[in-house]
């Protein structure tokens, strides 16, 4: 398995996204890339603009769900598709996790026929963030399509 990457996970009604990497931030970035891939084929698109998102939660699983939903909201408001995302290091203070990220985007009007489908929301159901013995972090979330 590559040191970092992403994939989709089967779910009967919807779809799961999975990202992994050497740290929790890269796992989150890859999970977001998996979600972007469900919406459109943007890997070859040039970045046109960026959007910033931030969120907080009491657990890393909840933070993952909040993060993906923040991206969906931000993209929808800007008529944008995501290409990739960069996270700042997570902060954890007094039992609350804080996340800030910049998403690299292309406008829907520029993406042409590369659209696949809408993701309605990231759900808490089955959300998980874990590290394995080899130090790889994995972030999984089911998204409602």
């Amino acid at each position: 398995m590559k040191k970092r990457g992403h994939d989709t996970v089967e779910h009967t009604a919807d779809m799961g996204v999975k990202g992994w990497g050497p740290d929790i931030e890269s796992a989150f970035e890859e999970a977001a890339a998996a979600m972007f891939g469900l919406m459109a084929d943007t890997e070859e698109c040039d970045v046109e603009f960026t959007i910033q998102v931030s969120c907080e939660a009491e657990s890393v699983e909840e933070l993952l769900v909040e993060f993906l939903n923040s991206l969906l909201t931000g993209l929808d408001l800007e008529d944008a598709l995501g290409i990739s995302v960069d996270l700042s290091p997570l902060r954890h203070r007094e039992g609350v996790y804080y996340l800030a990220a910049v998403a690299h985007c292309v406008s829907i009007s520029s993406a042409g026929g590369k659209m696949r489908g809408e993701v309605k929301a990231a759900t808490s159901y089955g959300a998980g963030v874990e590290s394995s013995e080899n130090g790889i972090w994995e972030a999984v979330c089911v998204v409602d399509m």
Partner: protein
Amino acid sequence: MSEEINLRKIGDFLWEIEPEGDMRVPARIYSDRDAIDFLLNESRTRQWDALRQIRNVASLPGLQIAALGMADIHPGYGFPIGGVGAFDQDEGIVTLAGVGFDINCGVRSMAVDLSMDEIESNKEKLAEQLFRTVPAGLGSTGKLKLSVEEIDRVLTEGARFAVRRGYGTDQDLEYIEEKGKMNGADPSAVSEQAKRRQLKQVGTLGSGNHYLEVQYVDRVYFSEAAESYGLEEGSVVVSIHTGSRALGHQIGTDYQSILRRASRKYGLPIYEKELVGAPIKSPEGKRYISAVIAGINCAFANRQVIAGLVRKAFNGVFATSENDIRTVYEVGHNNIKFEKHTVEGIEKELLVHRKGATRAFGPGRDEVPARYRAVGHPVLVGGTMGTSSYILAGTEKGMGETFGSAVHGAGRLKSRKQARKDVWGEDLINELKEEGILVRVHSKAGAAEEAPGAYKDVDRVVRAMEGAGVNRLVVRLKPVICIKG
């Protein structure tokens, strides 16, 4: 709770999981034997499992009679899709998983005063006209561009807002569940972000399993009801399947964390992360309910605008008038509603959750339009691109056993990922064309995910409900044009 699911047959097409562990009431599932075997196998081998989910629903406080699974039951996220749960208002809760993110997703069916010969001779032209006229797919925007203040009116006025903007007539409203407007919406319970996301999305179809189909009645099963609905063999029907769009998605997103905190605050059991909620009469519960009702009204407005666009598209091909396309009925399948039902001989007003389940009120209920009251309102059940859809009716038995509920579709059999592996979107579209079904899609990959083989056999699903005596088949519809996002 034990890991093994113990199911026993208690009636024709009806199975029960007896209360055990935390379960407060039984869980009951309408199904044939093969589908039960499929669910049991899924329960043993899969991470996502509808039987375990329905058992969890049966463990929630205040649930009345039983947690119910319609014959199209499949795993959701916390609450199974095809699930029904009715809660006592004093002891019960409202749960996010029982509504989902596509609030008041539902179906509008309209009868078209044209013959199938007329449709067939203009099919390509009509398909193109519908595809061009009705916005669909990721990033599509509606013809209406609204302000936040106008969105607030959408949330309180529902389909009436669209009628006032020139989309359809008051006659349509008579044949929409709740007459197209549900009381109790509070726009202030809906976030600014949710409203801003919706500014350009009123009157859009969306993607995924949403569709617009031109169909015809190929078989009549229950002639009295079909006559009441104004349908006969050969009748042309247009069906619209969509919901509350981005506004509904954002309401669900916003209330995930609010209801998670409320569950902890009120000491509610959390069997699944998504199966969170709040007591119905708590401040959090009341606020969520009023936000969901706002979302319900948004979906009513959305379908009403699309109905107007459908009429426009038909007019462009056939010069039909507005009255040539009559609303048969519109009903949602991702809802919560306060409804009166009889529990142990006592009439009570319950909060009924239907997640991927359709209201199916039988004969005599006041909520049913007067024209249909003798037979019950039409229950609109969508199939897939290549298969049948059905119109059913509720029954007296169904009112007693299911709180007046029915299936909402075929129910998924394969994951989207598996469906994409199995079918190439373009091949599917060509195959369906050979069968006389024109498909126009914005995403071919999305079409593959919605291939007929990805779903259960809708014929068997509706027959299980009829076999159990809780729904009746009225007519079967066959598709001729399908528009998807």
